């Protein structure tokens, strides 16, 4: 986990996500549906506002022309009396239209803010809700940084898309469309001239946007490499110093930095350059149209327009040139949005990709319920907390329900497993754990210890009947119910932002403060917690960064203790903690194990020694099994491990 992700917020320069600029087909349609689903009405209002704003903007220039043509010119040129009514009428219309423009602008931005933020929330929530249902395999096969990037970078591009790019684009299309209509109204020939230029412009935009995207990608890759290197060196800065390696790290840094500069320069140049090019293409179009207009007039070419066929007039050409400027500006502005829209759609694609992931499958129907037990041993379901649990097993064949008391009996029979089909990790694993027994797994890294525990709580699924829990095939047990019956203390402790108390209560949400403290005492954690500045109310952030490794382990033990499950999976931590804390952790673990069926992935000999059964794993096979004395007597691998000839890991 890089420190960067922990500490930083949204970044301004961002690397493209794992899929690069890939946009899945139909993303736009789906995004539209996503937005309209909740904000259809508001979105319609926004669109209406956009139309009004665009119209107000366009018509305003025409008003002036009309004012000149209908009111001013008659007075100045022809000496006619001042047409006061027309003047006031025009001004009145202007006020009304401008007023509508302002109101539309006001509501457009305000409602759009609501729509955009609401959509982003819905998108985030959908992503997160879906993510919670995904199998562990998803998290094991996707880099956490990439998942995070979907929440930060990709959602951010969607914000840009909905909140800015699309409205701007719509406004531009409206403007261009209306102008086109007006152009045809005035002159078909001149319009054809404009079309030729628009085609040239779009070719230029496409070419430059493509090149710009290419350089942008190269820049982001160089940025990722350079920043990755800086991060690595900074995180190992003390080692760099100890080895006087400063100069060498500078050399390598200079290379990467130089490369980033070269790519960045090009990317920025292409980003900057499109505007002046389009702008001046617009100017050239202006001249070309003027020449075209002049030729049409000179050669008395009959003008075809919606007003009929007449010779081309000077006035028409002038009006045309004015519109042409406006058109070039609009196209220039919307061209800036092209890249943004591509990026936004790529981001949306990745968000939807997460939402579309296949959730964890659960065909289980056996549930865990509170029960009471009569003297004769018959079990009755109870809706109260009885402290006694049973598996409720409905039989579809005859419609009966049977209850099996939860005891913590666990059987694995000939289990073979591989994370991918071509590489098996476990071979023919069989084991029987009676309630209250302690089974230890011992073996080198990669021997398959953690994999077994992944199967017991169904983080990964295997074919029917291979694992049984209190005699029930675990594939029949609903996953949440199964996991409630199983507690885990993992090697890497993960604490959540919140108070110490919150973190302990994570084990059982309805536990009272007293129960949490009781659990902390059992785990040997109460002593240090009460010495913290705010005791149980001490805020933990950054995975409990303010605590020592040992203290974090103690809290995770307390968390498991408060859940009070009949079966525990303990993955001991390997990291070195000082002797005194280690003894406390050990004692906490021992307390937790009492009266439970325990699977322990052992790194300490003392934990292993008093186990009921020890499984020595090697390359996915159980190579030795038995209790401590048996295995010592065998003088095999365990013996070597125990005498320190091999590493425990």
């Amino acid at each position, binding site marked *: 986990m890089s*420190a*960067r992700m922990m*500490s930083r917020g*949204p970044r*301004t320069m961002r690397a493209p996500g794992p899929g690069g600029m890939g946009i899945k087909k139909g993303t736009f349609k789906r995004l539209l549906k996503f937005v309209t689903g909740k904000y259809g009405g508001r979105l319609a209002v926004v669109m209406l506002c956009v139309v009004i704003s665009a119209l107000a903007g366009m018509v*305003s220039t025409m008003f002036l022309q009309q*004012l*000149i043509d209908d*009111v001013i010119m008659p007075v100045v040129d022809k000496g006619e009396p*001042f047409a006061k009514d027309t003047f006031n009428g025009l*001004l009145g219309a*202007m006020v009304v239209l401008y007023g509508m*423009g*302002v109101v539309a*602008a*006001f509501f457009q*931005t305000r409602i759009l803010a609501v729509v955009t*933020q609401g959509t982003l929330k819905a998108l985030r*929530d959908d992503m*997160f809700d879906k993510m919670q*249902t995904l199998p562990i395999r998803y*998290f094991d096969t996707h880099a956490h940084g990439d*998942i995070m990037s979907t*929440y930060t970078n990709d959602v951010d591009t969607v914000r840009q898309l909905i909140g800015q790019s699309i409205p701007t684009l719509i406004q531009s299309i409206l403007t261009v469309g209306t102008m086109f209509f007006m152009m045809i109204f005035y002159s078909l020939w001149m319009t054809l001239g404009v079309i030729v230029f628009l085609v040239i412009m779009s070719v230029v935009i496409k070419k430059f946007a493509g090149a710009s995207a290419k350089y942008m990608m190269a820049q982001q890759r160089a940025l990722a490499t350079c920043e990755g290197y*800086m991060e*690595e060196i*900074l995180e*190992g800065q003390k080692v760099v110093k*100890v*080895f006087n390696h400063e100069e*060498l790290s500078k050399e390598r*840094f200079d290379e990467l930095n*130089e490369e980033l*500069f070269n790519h*960045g*320069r090009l990317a*920025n140049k292409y*980003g*900057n350059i499109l505007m*002046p090019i389009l702008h001046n293409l617009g100017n*050239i179009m*202006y*001249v070309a149209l*003027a020449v075209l*207009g*002049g*030729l049409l*007039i000179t050669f008395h070419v009959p003008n075809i327009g919606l007003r009929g066929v007449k010779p081309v007039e*000077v006035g028409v050409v002038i009006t045309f*040139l004015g519109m042409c*400027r406006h058109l070039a500006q609009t196209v220039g502005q919307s061209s800036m949005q092209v890249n943004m829209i591509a990026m936004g759609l790529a981001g949306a694609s990745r968000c939807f990709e997460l939402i579309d992931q296949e959730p964890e499958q659960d065909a289980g129907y056996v549930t865990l319920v509170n029960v009471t037990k009569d003297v004769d041993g018959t079990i009755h379901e109870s809706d109260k907390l009885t402290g006694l649990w049973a598996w409720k097993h409905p039989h579809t064949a005859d419609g009966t329900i049977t209850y099996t008391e939860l005891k913590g009996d666990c059987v694995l029979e000939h289990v073979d497993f591989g994370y991918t089909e071509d590489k098996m990790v476990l071979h023919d694993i069989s084991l029987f754990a009676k309630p209250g027994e302690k089974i230890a797994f011992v073996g080198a890294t990669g021997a398959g210890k953690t994999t077994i525990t992944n199967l017991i709580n169904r983080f990964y699924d295997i074919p029917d009947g291979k694992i049984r829990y209190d005699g029930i095939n675990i594939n029949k047990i609903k996953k949440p119910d199964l996991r409630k019956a199983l507690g885990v203390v993992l090697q890497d402790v993960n*604490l959540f932002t919140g108070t110490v108390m919150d973190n302990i209560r994570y084990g059982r949400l309805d536990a009272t403060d007293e129960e949490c403290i009781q659990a902390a005492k059992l785990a040997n954690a109460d002593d240090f917690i009460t010495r913290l500045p705010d005791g149980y109310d001490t805020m933990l952030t950054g995975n409990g960064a303010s605590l020592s490794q040992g203290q974090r382990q103690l809290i995770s033990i307390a968390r498991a203790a408060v859940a009070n499950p009949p079966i525990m999976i303990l993955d001991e931590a390997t990291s070195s903690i*000082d*002797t*005194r804390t*280690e003894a406390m952790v050990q004692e906490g673990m021992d307390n937790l194990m009492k009266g439970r069926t325990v699977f322990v992935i052992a790194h300490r*000999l003392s934990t292993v020694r008093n186990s009921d059964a020890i499984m020595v794993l090697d390359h996915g096979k159980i190579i030795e099994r038995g209790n401590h004395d048996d295995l010592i007597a065998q003088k095999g691998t365990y013996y070597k491990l125990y*005498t320190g000839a*091999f*590493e425990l890991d």
Partner: protein
Amino acid sequence: MIKTLAKSVREYKKPAILSPILVSCEVILECLLPFVMASMIDEMDGTSMRPIIKYGIILIVLAMLSLYFGYAAASAAATAATGFAENLRKDLFYKVQDYGFADIDSFSTSSLVTRLTTDVANVQNAFQMIIRGVVRAPLMLVFSIVMSMMINVKMSFIFIAIMPVLGIALFMIFKVVYPIFKRIFKKYDALNNSVQENVAGIRVVKSFVRERYEAQKFNAASEDVRAEFTRAEKIIAFNNPIMVLCMYTAMFLVSFLGAKLIINTRGSEFTTGELSSLTAYGVQILMAMMVFSMMFVMCSIASEAANRIAEVLCHESTLTSPENGVTEVPDGSITFDHVSFKYSERSKKYALADINVEIKSGETIGIVGGTGSSKSSLIQLIPRLYDVSEGRVLVGGRDVREYDLVKLRDEVAVVLQKNVLFAGTIKENLRWGDPNASDEELERVCKLAQADEFIRQFPDGYDTRIEQGGTNVSGGQKQRLTIARALLKKPKILILDDSTSAVDTRTDALIRKAFAEEIPDTTKLIIAQRMSSVEHADKIIVLDGGKIAEVGTHEELMAAGGIYRETYDSQTRGREVAS
């Protein structure tokens, strides 16, 4: 702050200055073009192609020039901004390379990473915008105002009156929203952190069946972010209508008063052509104001990043190599002479208090003590990773502060407790110790560190790639590689700070045996939790709360029956019962 950052422009001064000049040329041409266009329209009468050809050629020439300037300006700005960022990164990186341990501690690694990445990116963006916009917006503004005044002074006052209204309104919005945004970004960070936490702890979430709970927690937080963002954006949303309102008001007033003026004076003071141009300039004035306000916002956001960068650049390392320092370390003897040490001048508590120790060259010293007993602090003073607060540390009979720092650290190798391997092959990692070491030499030290055997078992042997952070080797393997790396320096003093904790006892013993046989003249300091690691040392130092509690050989300390004895017994008890 600006001065500090400006120093990093250096060789990109030329494009940085050129860029605004080129932009000015572009702006002037941009403003000239409508003039020429207006002239063309004025002279166009439908009888001759001459004015069209004449002005057409002028326009195309101007457009070409404008294109050239635009291109050159874009290019110069890109070079200047990315070059500035390059230098800034370089200056920061170099600066941090010169930092001492204390300086790194005071900034924290993650904060340094943010400053070198996100903050530099923000400053780069702002810089590019400034050099491109710093002349464009004001020039456009001034030019448009001058032009409108030339057309008609009285009418131009409409714009001059509206400008401050718009300016103040935009500024007010910014002032209200800026603090809100600052707060929101914190919440937004927290939201993203909670996703991070969830992804990292997904096994815990699933084991405790907390998927629903987590989703509810997240939904509440995301609702909070949504509500706050919406609130802030609604305020920002005033920007647009206010701008539109000002523009329309100006247009209306110009149309209304202009038309009246023309009619009243029968076109002698003001013409219709002037009326059209005036409205065009009015739009330009207000647009320039808008750009201005945006630049202002960008700059205030970037100024915080700039401040954070300047902090790093201005921070002077407290620990520097003396001029003409001694480059010869005569032997591996170490003396602590009334040494006291605290990590920060402000902290009241001393990490080490009045330490006096004599270590002879070639001795093996064990250092033990509980967490927080300052074992690491003690050994870090020897290669001057930190400087003492009081007293002095002597190596080879000289105060460590007299030595050339590089030379001293070459002779004193430390294997740090929090150690790292870097992305690259095993060979590359090992050669950190000595870039010129031969393959045989690498093998020799790896055999000493008991690493040779497992390295050979890797498919690619010594050329096996280590992932960033060394995630693809086990803890014990990592420790042995870092020991080998330190051995390659052939130091006079070798310090292992809890460096064999993940190594099994037998290998641990083999390493110590190899040390004793192969590098007998090197002074060896070993910090360990495991008593068996220090048991055979020539001398064992027991630290407790930053003070030396006991010193002596294993036998002496066992006889003394203090902390050492107590810890030793607690660790060996289990083993004795078992065997």
